[in-house]
């Protein structure tokens, strides 16, 4: 394998500035939406006392989970020594930081008291997994930042493996923490499962890689750099494995619940009676997010087609958002089982399915988080050498003849 050269992109063109402007505008809309929600109070959103976490959290958790997964490519190179992923490591680490930043922005701006951010990062209840997550997220920035430094600084290159290992372990703990936010809750039938943590880890692999592939293909396509088939083929196969793994975890989760009589109510709700949640589960998560991508990844006819890979990655991202929606909002919508065997009614909507319809400010806030992530990447690749000048097969493929 030849020595890889990394260069900044030129970033002079009108479309480039247009992209920056567009993303900046989206962020501005997000700030306006935040001001509107914070100034008036959350009654202007779709979130209520029954559904307390809504669209912003769907986007935020998706971005945070994907952030940890985006680091995968770098980890496979540094920790597991697969050389073909080595040139991709810098972009992988950059994307990880960018996605996490976007997710955190959404999460923090949705707080009831975002002005108390200082309190949140200085006052900790260490029994809370949320508190640990705050430490894990801020530490992630530090460790991955150091990782990028190791990758870019010629003198520090020898420490890359150790820092890469630390980053790998850190993000496993981080994603376990994110899954445990739900897994630790005894109150709701859809949560309260140790499986949530590893399930989130597997989801992170899948979503993170899908986003990475899209960003990689877009940045090479739009800057006219060469991206060889060897790299694409490896990424595609890896993506297929991860999608299959996510489906496996979904199967285990639901089959287990179907066995447990206590959980039949919530399973009937998600799988059959839940209206929007049932539709998003079967069509969004399973079909569009799982089965069709698997078919397209492995079908001989379209295996090598890059447009198909782009489509597949987009479908996986859509399926991932659907999965988050079903978990986060579906899990809250199903009424708490306080009085098993009784029909329950009250003025506080006990015993009934919680109603939720996402409001525009919430969706805009979520999308602006995506815009923050993309803006960070778009800007960073112009400022520093994150992208290899060429990933042609002759350069990138470790098995290519010299």
């Amino acid at each position, binding site marked *: 394998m030849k020595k890889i050269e990394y260069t900044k992109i030129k970033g002079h063109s009108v479309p480039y500035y247009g992209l920056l402007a567009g993303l900046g505008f989206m962020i501005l809309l997000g700030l306006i939406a935040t001001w509107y929600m914070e100034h008036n109070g959350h009654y202007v959103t779709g979130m209520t006392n029954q559904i307390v976490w809504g669209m912003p959290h769907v986007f935020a958790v998706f971005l945070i989970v994907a952030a940890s997964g985006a680091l995968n490519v770098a980890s496979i190179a540094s920790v597991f020594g697969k050389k073909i992923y080595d040139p991709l490591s810098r972009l992988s680490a950059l994307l990880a930081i960018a996605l996490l930043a976007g997710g955190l922005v959404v999460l923090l701006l949705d707080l009831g008291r975002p*002005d108390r951010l200082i309190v949140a990062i200085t006052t900790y209840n260490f029994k809370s997994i949320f508190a640990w997550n705050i430490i894990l997220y801020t530490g992630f920035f530090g460790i991955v930042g150091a990782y990028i430094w190791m990758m870019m600084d010629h003198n520090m290159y020898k420490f890359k493996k150790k820092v890469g290992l630390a980053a790998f372990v850190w993000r496993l703990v981080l994603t376990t923490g994110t899954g445990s936010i739900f897994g630790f809750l005894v109150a709701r039938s859809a949560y309260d499962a140790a499986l949530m943590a590893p399930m989130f880890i597997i989801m992170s692999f899948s979503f993170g890689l899908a986003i990475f592939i899209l960003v990689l293909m877009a940045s090479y396509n739009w800057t006219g750099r060469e991206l060889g088939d060897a790299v694409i083929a490896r990424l595609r196969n890896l993506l297929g494995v991860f999608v299959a793994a996510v489906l496996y975890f979904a199967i285990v989760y639901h089959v287990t619940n179907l066995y447990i009589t206590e959980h039949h109510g919530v399973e009937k709700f998600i799988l059959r009676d839940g209206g929007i949640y049932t539709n998003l589960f079967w069509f969004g998560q399973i079909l569009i997010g799982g089965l069709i991508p698997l078919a397209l990844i492995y079908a001989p006819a379209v295996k090598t087609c890059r447009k198909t890979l782009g489509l597949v990655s987009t479908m996986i991202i859509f399926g991932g958002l659907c999965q988050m929606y079903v978990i986060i909002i579906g899990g809250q919508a199903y009424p708490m089982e306080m009085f098993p065997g009784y029909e329950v*009614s*009250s*003025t506080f909507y006990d015993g*009934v399915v919680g109603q939720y319809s996402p409001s525009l400010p919430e969706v805009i806030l979520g999308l602006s988080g995506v815009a923050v992530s993309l803006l960070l990447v778009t800007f960073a690749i112009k400022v520093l050498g994150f992208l290899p000048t060429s990933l042609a097969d002759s350069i990138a493929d470790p098995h290519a003849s010299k």
Partner: protein
Amino acid sequence: MSKRFLRISLIFIGSILLFPAQGMAGTPFPLIHEPEGEGVECVEDEDEMRRNHMNYILHQRDKTMHEGIRTETYSLSKCIDCHVQPNDKGEVPTHENKEHFCVACHQYASVQIDCFECHADRPQKFIKRDSKPQALRQQLQEVLAEKDMGDAQ
């Protein structure tokens, strides 16, 4: 980026930041209405209170909140009872009004406080309360009635 461009943008940003200084010339000095009554004194010295009132308030709030200690000396509501009084026209200022005892200084010093997002900003006797709480129950009952009718259908 050229040095010239950098210089110009720095000057531009600097001048924007200096704008508020112009405004300061026009900010009115806070007028604090002393509580009336003979022998009425604050719980601490004026100088001490000017510098450290926040410490007393913060300390008291933790004691009341976490330990249930409800002594009245440094109680926020007692401060309000004394310091927030009707003005010459008989109106009692709310925390949106810069005549309010706390707001007058805090706005001048540009130190934001959020006490009155939760705490009453004037003595209870000046707060008109209508029978809203009943309205809550009525609304909720209407919701229940609608649902019952829906079930019956």
